[in-house]
């Protein structure tokens, strides 16, 4: 069994290797909804990161999103934009850590071995994604638990910071003030 220290070391070395291998590895098909979003200037997230978020967000937010498919797609895009805005506002050192997390999730070998998702994110089923979240959430490795928490916090913040989320949870929004 992998010890915690060995695992962390592997993670660090893996991170360096990933950066090198990622560019060479292909082919990659982005989620069409994120690929076609030209109206927002993404500052932090590339197509690969957005494709992962497009897969994970509906599972993370299951039960919290509008029923209507078109409305749902619209708010999911807003969630991804919200995550981009949040990540781009973090200090550079923390942005690097977020990039490493997405690299780990995006690189096919680690996606399969560490996240347990067999095929590309675009084709992953919600059961598969849910199993991944559950595994990381309850992992004995603090590093994986922190990866789960990062995704949970980024996606939840992007959705519940958005006023479109408020009617469902009975939050009336801030009171009106005459300034």
């Amino acid at each position, binding site marked *: 069994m992998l010890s915690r220290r060995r695992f962390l070391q592997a993670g660090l070395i893996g991170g360096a290797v990933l950066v090198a291998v990622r560019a060479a590895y292909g082919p990659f098909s982005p989620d069409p909804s994120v690929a076609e979003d030209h109206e927002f200037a993404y500052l932090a997230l590339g197509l690969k990161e957005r494709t992962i978020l497009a897969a994970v967000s509906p*599972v993370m*937010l299951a039960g919290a999103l509008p029923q209507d498919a078109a409305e749902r797609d619209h708010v999911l895009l807003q969630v991804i934009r919200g995550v981009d805005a949040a990540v781009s506002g973090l*200090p550079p050192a923390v942005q690097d850590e977020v990039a490493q997390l997405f690299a780990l999730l995006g690189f096919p070998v680690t996606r399969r071995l560490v996240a347990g998702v067999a095929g590309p994110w675009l084709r992953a089923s919600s059961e598969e994604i849910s199993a991944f979240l559950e595994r990381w959430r*309850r992992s004995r490795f603090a590093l994986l638990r922190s990866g789960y928490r990062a995704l949970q916090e980024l996606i939840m913040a992007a959705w519940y*910071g958005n006023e479109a989320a408020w009617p469902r949870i009975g939050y009336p929004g801030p009171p009106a003030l005459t300034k």
Partner: protein
Amino acid sequence: MIRDPVAQGLATGWAAHDASTFTRDMRLDADVAIVGTGAGGGVAADILSKAGLRVVMIEEGPLASSKDFRMRESQAYPHLYQESAARKTEDKGINILQGRCVGGSTTVNWTSSFRTPPGTLEYWQRTFGLKELTVEELAPWFAMMERRLNIETWTTAPNENNDILRRGAAKLGIPTATMRRNVTGCWNLGYCGVGCPTNAKQSMLVTTIPAALSRSAVLVSRARAQALTVEGQRVSALECAALDARGLRPTPYKVMVTARHFVLAAGAIGTPALLLRSRVPDPRGRIGRRTFLHPTCVSAAAMPDKVDGFAGAPQSVYCDHFLETHPIDGAIGYKLEVPPLHPLLTATTLQGYGETHARLMAQMPYTQAIIALQRDGFHEASQGGEVSLRSDGSPLLAYPITEFVWDGVRRAYLTMAEIQFAAGARSVLPVHEDAVPYESWPAAKDAIQKLEMRVLKAHVVSAHVMGGCGMGNDEKNSVVDAEGRHHHLDNLSVFDGSVFPTSIGANPQLSIYGLTARQASRLAARLTGRPAPVLS
């Protein structure tokens, strides 16, 4: 019309500069240069400028004011907080809420005001040789700051979130008390944490800093203090980097400050980091050690009636029973309070995802929450954390949560659940990844006793960063003396929460105000040769 003292002051020509707009370097000279404009920096600027000294204030965050405060979490957290209110300890096990704006954490705190508890001061006297820091010595300084910031007992009825803590504790025979708050004409809205939109909160942003600026003090915001220049036993200069408009990366421009005296008030992560970057003398390696957080755990309850925890003064009731019934240096004790429940913070704090999380969020108006703040730093097994530097010079706090602290977390989960059931909760949810809503006190008790206490399982948060440049009379275990003067550099003082040798055991703002009032007054008297002015 809500009066905005910042907008008014700027219109009268305050020397307030936004370094993100700089197109060239700036050089400043002052009697005293102050790094940071929070509880320590604000009070120091007020006293030193009133003493007639020329003051320069350096602030990493933006100068924002009530006209910018729109009561929206998604705007306020990236704008006003360190790391968008998602600052983490090294292992990501603790989320830290800390301000980064003019006024520092006082601009975004929940206004709770406590004098330093006598037991804490006695422990400092006994353990760190701080003989002068007695209750009697500090009382007039607390009184002065209470007047200055209108700190008074909150007389409006507590909101339901707070009242449930009061009622549940009362049912169990546990005493609670009413908070004191630094507000004037509070509208009881509940949005203190995202910048007071009415300027009722008497933060540094609307009190001491405007006072200093009106006396011709200079403020440079969006400037990060990079390093002090040390020459022999003195600091000769401070080099700052102008930051971009979002405060993330340095621009090519510098702000160079020379001064007779330098005051560091950048908070308990920022101040040690600046000293480490500056490589000031530290023969015992004390800088950045013993950093305390009041590690805080959360218990959420589903109530039969509406709570609306987003509305009304966020904190008005507290309980010190679990601090006062233990010896201070025995098993860890905890203070009970409640947090405001706004959607973003609630959603990111609660455990889980998907349908389970969505159901919890749908219950938000019926949700009550209690928090337990662990009093860390009073026992061998609670040495706190350590601030170090990342390769890019930014600070990183490692805070390993020891078994000693986890023991307190478990007892606190039990206490909070029992109080919530006593107040009529339908179910109680300890905020821990392995916990679910429990529908009775015996079920909750049984489950809490079995919960695995590990980081990123139990959700631990902190809004109080303390220590890292501890006071003491012995340089072996401290960085500054009982007046906040650096042990090795003659013209360097630290006036912020980083001087606390342990945690406070209460929300720290008034401890910082009172202690800084004393230290800054002594400094003013030394620098001017006249008695220090009294703030009113």
